[in-house]
């Protein structure tokens, strides 16, 4: 019987050079040694320490097989032995899958050794130890695999469950959209749950109604000692900001805290109206905030959409009621630079009261005319819309040069 070392079947440990060839077979990724001299490695199961002069008889009690047998059978007949292994000890069957069924026997603690052992025996032991580690490793892998499979099965089951639920919901929705799921069937669920549902429905209706006040610009919530007002600003259809004012009404009307920017003349407005007419106070404050946010929004839009036309940085003050910038204009005889200064003297207004547009002093008369037209546009249109209209005018001018420059669309 010539046995060669297993060709690193489990993929882990290389065959140590110089280790005597042992009739070893790897089964199930673990060690199932043939108990041949000189040292039958029967201690794989742990517990028994390795005796240096162990009787040559193999531990039949444990293994349930005679030493003469080249292959030890698994004591548990239910543990399958992979096909090819039974036939011949060597060479190992290449069909053995790298991850075969688990072998519970391999989960054993390392046997305790009496101390360092010289000579080939030690090397054998080291080798066996390594093999054992390999075995443990593969057992661990198998266990992991089992867990993975279990997890996979759970995941699959969950997917199935969710799919079924989704399909049910889809079907219900379809019925509902067709109007087949009537109020009555919803009421029929059970007698009392429907009364609950009626109450919950009403609460939702009231919540939606409250939500609507947000869209009207002035909203509020009753607090223990007063009202917390919320002012919402918008530019046309786009909502911009919300500001909060916590107003105490007892013992006297007073603003507890607020999120109004410092440059809005809140104190002045409060002094004028807060004690006498709360609604008036909020309306005036709203006008200031809405105009401020509106001016800021226009500047932001200008910078966002027409940065290509702007020359240098746009300058504005904190209230955004003074805006200065320079921009490019293309005329018949090339491109020119205009500078604009917009001033909003009415702080409750988001259109400038004054718009000065100037061109170079030596510019042709046609440009001076255009500058005047632009100034008029800035006073009438939102900043970014005025720019959109300039661009449009220039385009049409390119196509049909009859149109005067800067003509309103």
């Amino acid at each position: 019987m010539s046995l060669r070392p297993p060709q690193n079947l489990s993929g882990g440990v290389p065959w140590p050079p110089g280790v005597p060839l042992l009739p070893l077979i790897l089964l199930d990724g673990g060690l199932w040694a043939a108990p041949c001299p000189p040292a039958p490695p029967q201690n794989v199961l742990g517990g028994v320490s390795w005796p240096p002069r162990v009787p040559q008889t193999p531990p039949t009690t444990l293994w349930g097989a005679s030493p003469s047998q080249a292959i030890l059978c698994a004591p548990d007949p239910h543990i399958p032995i992979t096909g090819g292994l039974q036939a011949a000890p060597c060479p190992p069957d290449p069909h053995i899958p790298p991850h075969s069924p688990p072998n519970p026997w391999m989960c054993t603690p390392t046997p305790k050794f009496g101390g360092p052992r010289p000579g080939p025996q030690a090397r054998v032991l080291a080798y066996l130890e390594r093999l054992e580690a390999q075995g443990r490793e593969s057992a661990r892998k198998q266990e992991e695999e089992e867990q993975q499979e279990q997890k996979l099965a759970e995941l699959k089951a969950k997917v199935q469950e969710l799919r079924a639920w989704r399909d049910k919901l889809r079907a219900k929705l379809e019925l509902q959209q067709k109007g087949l799921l009537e109020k009555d069937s919803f009421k029929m669920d059970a007698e009392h749950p429907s009364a609950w549902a009626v109450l919950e429905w009403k609460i939702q209706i009231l919540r939606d109604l409250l939500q609507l006040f947000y869209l009207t610009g002035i909203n509020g919530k009753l607090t223990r000692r007063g009202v917390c007002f919320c002012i919402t600003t918008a530019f046309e259809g786009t909502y911009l900001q919300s500001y909060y004012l916590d107003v105490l009404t007892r013992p006297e009307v007073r603003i507890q805290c607020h999120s109004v920017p410092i440059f809005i003349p809140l104190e002045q407005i409060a002094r004028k109206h807060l004690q006498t007419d709360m609604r008036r106070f909020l309306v005036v404050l709203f006008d200031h905030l809405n105009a401020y946010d509106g001016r800021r929004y226009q500047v932001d839009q200008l910078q966002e959409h027409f940065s290509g036309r702007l020359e240098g940085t746009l300058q504005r003050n904190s209230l955004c009621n003074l805006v200065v910038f320079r921009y490019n204009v293309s005329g018949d005889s090339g491109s020119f630079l205009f500078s604009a200064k917009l001033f909003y003297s009415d702080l409750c207004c988001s259109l400038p009261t004054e718009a000065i547009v100037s061109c170079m002093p030596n510019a042709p008369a046609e440009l001076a005319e255009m500058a005047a037209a632009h100034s008029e546009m800035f006073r009438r249109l939102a900043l970014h819309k005025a720019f959109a209209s300039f661009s449009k005018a220039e385009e049409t001018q390119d196509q049909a040069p009859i149109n005067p420059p800067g003509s309103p669309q």
Partner: protein
Amino acid sequence: MENNVYKVYEDEIQLLEEEIKLLAEKYDNLKQESTFYSDEEILTSIKLLQKEFQGKSKGERLSSLKAQLESLEREISFLMKFTGIHFTSHSKKTLEKNENRTVQKHRLSGNCHSLPFQLEFQLLETQNKENVSTVITDFNVIMESGEYSDLSKFVSSTEKHGSLLLFFRSLSSYAEWYEHRRCTFLHFKAKYPDIVALPEGQLGDYIILRNPKLPGFELMIVWKIHIDEEGRITPVLDLLTKVPEQVLERKMAPFENAPTCFRSMLLLFGIETAIENLIKVAGLEKSIPALLTRGSNLKSSFN
């Protein structure tokens, strides 16, 4: 490798869970939007539950729901009273909903002080990074603008730009002026019933002052409330005179000046005082033309 196997399933589970969440929300929305219960049904439900769960553990849930209901109703009634905006009916329909985009169609009717309105708009909410952006589109207003002709221009401008917020703010302030005018007219009618007449009722935009001793003599105070396209409101008052010929023959000049005088009085004293002074003058037993030209304590302000 194994992780990839899981990932396929885990991804699907995540997708399914998201889809289910959306579907469930959609279902709840539709259920909410397609149902209607009258106040009576709501009261019946409360009574039913009260009877059933008196002193039982579920009674807590009932009282918490009732408390919620009451507090919401209190808030709404406070806001309606405070802002003067009353919503009488509201319905919404979710047109589109996914993770970061919701489109709802709202129908709303109500009144702002005494002015009724009906609206329709789409509310688009987009979630980007940290904040939600809210935009109004497809804004439509139905108002009987025949009566409030200066309002219709403003309304169509807000419709064009989707300015729902501006609509509410300006309508509020317009309606407040409207209300103020009505109250002022009524106040003078009650105070000087013989002199003040409201030919178009309390909602009309003018009053007529008559002197019972001077048949044919009439002063007409027209009070218009102007609203521009940006929603700015300005009250415009003017005085028209109707003077019998025999009076005119005698004193021509003062009546030509009266409207100008009234305008300066408005600037000096404000609307109410100016009207009151005019009424007092019109009601005096002595000849009005004479008063308007000499001897009146109002003379200084008339010039």
